[in-house]
């Protein structure tokens, strides 16, 4: 299958249509009339928000649809044969050696009970292309090419024994093992930390370029796709919004929707300038230490202040202890030493020892509204509960208050009888905010509140939070890994690394030179729309890492 000349189309998709099949005839259309062609060595980026049909298109090129869906129209021409017309056996032969898939979460897509060697070698061995020994040699070669540590022995490990970034690269090795004609990348860096994302992205690009493999790169992040794609297709609700070269889409988008996507990404680089916060802090965290069971300190000597009207961002990568800090402030995890003062009084370390008033004044909004709301309760119960619990109001007043809160959230009043399952992701997050506000708090801890949402929906939530802050004078402690968000909404920021604060202060100062080396590393890792960003950051990174070594900061424990 590899004896094909450059320039010829490897894959030609025409008028692809994918539908959900229900018991009562045809259901919703997931992909509608999508066409594109892919040449050898060419990368096409599919971009859009969730529900745009990107993954469905990616999977369709492997002749695969998720449960309940089917390809109902169009042709998928691979190597002169229509994938739709293939028999089950031909389709199996296509998957792996012809088209290979790289999934979003490597942690979930590797079998926990098998070694990496077993899984990486499975495609060439099971398709009868190589012996086990040859496949192993090839796997080691790919591990080395992808700069995985100790390539000879790397494959002997189980998935849980390697880091997320390494696992994602191992999945690329798995896909490449049989030298496929097309690689389908389905949001392969979304689950990674920013600093890891840069390395993985660079590894993927090198792989594609050196092997001249055609690729479909699916993502919701325009800046990521800008680094890797030749062509970009913008999708919405299963339809093509705009299709063109990467340069055209990024620099001169024709469609309104594309313009909005591009604009939101660029908007991520302005500082918030209003710094109108009160004098005395409402929350003072001083020198707090906390750990789970072990002696290892998850939070190690952290101090910060939050004033009325403040938005203090806590940034850091996974494992930096930022969510643990929230748990310590809330009292779910008692601190071991240090002090947390709220409105001048020291808060008891344990949740159970705090007064009802102390509990009421600090509320929390969660990352995943899906799991933070009881699916069996109506919005009246969910939002009304804190009103009743903290203020003991009679039933009709509770109802009136819930309606008022729904209006504040821009949610229709008739939602009061609905359950979370009937709402969209953004609407659920609004309910989460309403529930926090129902307690009339002084401080709201926002734990990654937009990271489970689509870009444009997340923007709306941020705007809502800002409006509520202006109206009610709330203070936010904003835990996030998204530095773009921080720049826009936070007037203060603290940067955490392995449980310690490495930098802190006003956002404009922390995020401006002279940087702390780790802050610089984080900032430089946020993808930018320029297509030369990745090359630039890679060359700069060597210097930054050297500076961090000089300052004796280790990224990996």
């Amino acid at each position, binding site marked *: 299958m590899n004896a094909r000349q450059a320039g010829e189309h490897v894959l030609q998709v025409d008028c692809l249509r994918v539908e959900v099949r229900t018991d009562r005839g045809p259901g919703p259309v997931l992909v509608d009339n999508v066409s594109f062609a892919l040449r050898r060595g060419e990368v096409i980026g599919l971009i859009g928000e969730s529900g745009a049909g990107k993954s469905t298109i990616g999977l369709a090129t492997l002749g695969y649809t*998720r449960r309940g869906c089917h390809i109902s129209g169009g042709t998928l021409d691979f190597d002169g044969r229509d994938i739709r017309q293939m028999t089950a056996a031909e389709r199996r032969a296509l998957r*792996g050696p012809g088209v290979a898939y790289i999934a979003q979460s490597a942690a979930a897509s590797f079998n926990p009970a098998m070694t990496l060697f077993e899984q990486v070698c499975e495609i060439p061995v099971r398709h009868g292309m190589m012996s086990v020994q040859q496949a192993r040699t090839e796997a080691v070669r790919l591990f080395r090419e992808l700069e995985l540590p100790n390539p000879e022995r790397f494959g002997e490990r189980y998935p849980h024994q390697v880091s997320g970034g390494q696992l994602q690269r191992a999945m690329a090795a798995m896909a490449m093992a049989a030298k496929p004609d097309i690689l389908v990348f389905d949001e392969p860096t979304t689950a990674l930390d920013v600093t890891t994302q840069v390395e993985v992205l660079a590894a993927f690009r090198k792989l594609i370029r050196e092997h001249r493999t055609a690729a479909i790169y699916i993502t919701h992040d325009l800046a990521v796709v800008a680094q890797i794609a030749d062509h970009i297709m913008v999708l919405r609700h299963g339809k093509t919004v705009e299709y063109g070269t990467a340069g055209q889409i990024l620099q001169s988008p024709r469609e309104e929707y594309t313009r909005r996507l591009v604009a939101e990404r660029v908007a991520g680089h302005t500082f918030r300038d209003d710094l109108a916060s009160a004098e005395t802090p409402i929350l003072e965290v001083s020198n707090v230490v906390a750990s789970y069971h072990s002696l290892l300190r998850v939070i190690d000597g952290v101090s910060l202040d939050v004033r009325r009207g403040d938005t203090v961002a806590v940034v850091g990568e996974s494992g930096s202890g930022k969510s643990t800090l929230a748990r310590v402030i809330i009292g779910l995890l008692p601190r071991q030493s240090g002090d947390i003062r709220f409105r001048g009084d020291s808060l008891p370390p344990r949740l159970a020892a705090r007064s009802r008033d102390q509990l009421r004044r600090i509320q929390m909004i969660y990352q995943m509204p899906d799991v933070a709301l009881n699916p069996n309760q109506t919005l009246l119960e969910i939002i009304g509960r804190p009103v009743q619990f903290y203020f003991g109001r009679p039933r009709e007043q509770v109802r009136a208050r819930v309606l008022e809160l729904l209006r504040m959230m821009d949610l229709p009043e008739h939602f009061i009888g609905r359950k979370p399952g009937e709402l969209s992701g953004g609407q659920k997050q609004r309910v989460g905010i309403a529930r926090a506000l129902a307690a009339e708090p002084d401080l709201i801890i926002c734990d990654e509140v937009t990271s489970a949402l689509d870009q444009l929906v997340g923007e709306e939530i941020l705007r809502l939070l800002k409006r509520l802050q202006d109206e009610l004078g709330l203070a936010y402690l904003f835990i996030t890994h998204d530095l773009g968000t921080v720049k826009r909404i936070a007037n203060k920021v603290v940067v955490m690394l392995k449980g310690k604060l490495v930098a802190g202060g006003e956002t404009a100062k922390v995020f401006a030179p002279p940087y702390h080396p780790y802050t610089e590393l984080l900032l430089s890792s946020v993808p930018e729309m320029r297509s030369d960003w990745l090359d630039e950051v890679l060359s700069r990174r060597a210097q930054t890492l050297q500076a961090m070594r000089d300052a004796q900061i280790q990224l990996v424990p």
Partner: protein
Amino acid sequence: MLRLIAQRLGLGLLTLFAASVLIFAGTEILPGDLASAVLQNSATPESLAEMRKELGLDRPAAVRYVEWLGHAVEGDLGRSLASHRDVVEEITPRLKNTMFLAVYAAVVAVPLAVVLGLMAAIWQGGIYDRAVNFVTLLTISVPEYLVGYILIKYLSVRLGWFPSLANVTPDTPLLERIGLTFLPMLTLVLVVMAHMMRMTRASVLQIMASPYIEMAFLKGLPKWRVVVRHAFPNALAPIINVIALDLAYLIVGVVVVEAVFVYPGLGQLMVDAVSKHDVPLVQACGLIFAGAFILLNMTADVLAILTNPRLRHPR
């Protein structure tokens, strides 16, 4: 991981201890006591008191419990009241019979159930899947004595293939024993297979919804390989637990089947002992049953821990 396993073993011992307390308390509150059981009709208040003193029954229950447990740990389970033989001697041949039948049934049922369950998972929703589900549901719903009698009627009386009575003695040779106990074995297999087969099917299908299974399909692997190689190893823990419960049932809960086939097993012995007020024998049987139950469940726990790659291969 070793700590986890040690923890399970410790818990098992603790459970066994608790069970011994319950068994002792249970025989203690049986109506009538040892003395009245021994004397039966010749009991007068004086002779009863005499006998109680002789048997040490006038001492507090706690003291007697400690004494009994101490002896049991040393392997001395006392003497049977009915036959006046050593309880251990009384029990040993019966226990051997029970274990033989349990192992015989397990050796047939476990592999069969797992294979049938895997096949049902591979052809999920198909004719085979539905047929197997229906048949096993049927055999599990029919009371075991009825299954036994139906088998006797057709396979023994009508066709004459297998004997209807499993009257083995300690010197029956192995091959003959296998033939004699074929029908009780088949009855037990039919009773326990549905659990194991359905659990295998259900837990494999649950794993089949995982992203790494989708990945395996996207690697172009045939379905049988995805099920057997990718899904099954990850579905083992719940399957092992159900197998352990069923094995425990095969040892502990087969009195009815023993009765139907007149098989000299431990269950029969215990029922007889209860009706004869043979307290030492009842206690001994109780301890053995509890021990078997706890041992099997503990083994299942340990095996389930061992199937978890995260525990087997720490970071």
